[in-house]
């Protein structure tokens, strides 16, 4: 079976992936203007200041949108269809691509979700599930 394509860890993204391996989701924040974002960049896309800082996310967010694949574009996902891919916006502002660990019928935009770090082929990746109430 074809393996799931894994992230290519670079010096730029290493703090992100090592953070997940240590059990935390990190994002970048500009030390100059306070802007927060993902994925990793060398400079703030708002004020262009270099050397952004890494910060730990609280792990809560909401669903912006999602799709459900019925055909696997990549054969590694052939035995997973149908599967969802979603955009989640963290409470701190950054957005990321992820999967929501629920049946597709439960999904809706603005649904509160919480982080659930899981292993995928030996790499810790951030998935989400509906947030517990309260």
């Amino acid at each position, binding site marked *: 079976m074809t393996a799931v394509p894994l992230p*290519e860890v670079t010096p730029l993204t290493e703090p992100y992936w090592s953070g997940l391996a240590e059990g935390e989701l990190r994002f970048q924040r500009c030390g100059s203007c306070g802007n927060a974002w993902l994925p990793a960049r060398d400079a703030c896309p708002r004020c262009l200041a270099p050397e952004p800082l890494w910060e730990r996310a609280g792990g809560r967010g909401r669903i912006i*949108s999602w*799709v459900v694949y019925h055909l696997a*574009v990549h054969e590694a996902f052939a035995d997973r269809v149908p599967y969802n891919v979603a955009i989640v916006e963290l409470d701190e502002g950054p957005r990321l691509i992820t999967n929501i660990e629920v049946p597709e019928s439960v999904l809706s935009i603005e649904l509160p979700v919480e982080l659930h770090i899981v292993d995928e082929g030996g790499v810790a*990746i951030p998935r989400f599930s509906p947030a517990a109430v309260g």
Partner: protein
Amino acid sequence: MRGEVVIAGIGHTAYGKLPGRSPTSMNVEAVRLALVDAGVEKDAVDAVFVKYPTSQHISMYGQVVAEALGLHPRIGGVWDQGGATNISMITFAAMAVLNGQCEVAVVTTADNPRTGTRQAYERGWGDDAVFGWFGTPAGYAMIARRHMEEFGTTHEQLGEIAVAARGHGAANGDAQLRLPLTLEQFAESRPVVDPFCRDDCCLISDGGAAVVVMSRERAAQLAVPAPVPILGLGQGQTSWDVPLRPTLTETAAASAARTAFAMAGMGPGDIDVAQLYDCFTITVLMTLEDYGFCPKGQGGPFVAGGNLQLGGELPVNTSGGLLSETGMPGMQLVLESVRQMRGTSTSQVPDASTCIVSNQGGIMHTHSTMIVGQL
């Protein structure tokens, strides 16, 4: 600039499966036919604008095509805005013509993803491939889902767009897919990436198409038989990739149309027929909103009841568009706008004197708009 530049000629290859044809050979055929249509000798051409072939990057491709055409352009090259490229190149050609940089420009595009490689449309999105995030259709599906959830747009309303295009394509002898579609058949179409089914998605096609651009004055000197004046041009872009885009349901079509309508001195109410980039059904619906044919969020009700079909309030994609004529990224829409203004479409809108055309690329990253009409 309004009305000062014309599309003097149009040409295209066959559409569909063209095994063994390279993008370069198809560009040459399209340009040859466009020059014949314009009644212009090749030697009059002094500018060559080429869309890069999406499925294969070739370095300095503008020069590759110019060499195959046996031309030595004063200005030109290759341009990459994805599917917005063709109208954008017409815009640059028009500006070059009016500013003394050239006199007669050919603008051409060709690609062979059908018999060649489709890899460009199916790739994983960087590190996010680990989540199964692959391919162009899913990016548009992500936008469609947000629109449906936010505004109550239904899949059946998206089907109206496919039904209109397929009906017009069935009437077009040059179309790759000449199979009319009903809303019932659309509802039963195979799911691909929800909310899209197969019939929400454009064709994949080999083919080439080209236009000849020159000043209205030069067209008169050369006795061009059926020049069509360009009344408005505009472009707009967002740079945010889909996951990062602050508002998924608004596109750069709004800014492109503002510029084009201002140049033309027109508004949506002045438009008789539209050729709107339909890589996916949602693209047409959101372009109608962003162009101002209906308020934001009202695209669903606007397209309902056959409103986009010949005889409806705004006939759209009268040669079949990307959903039925050819999946070629955009130039076929330009060609059809010229045919509508000449009165030679296979789904001719009676007495049409204005046509708006949209091109857009990436996943609604880039947008270009053109308005053509009889002065």
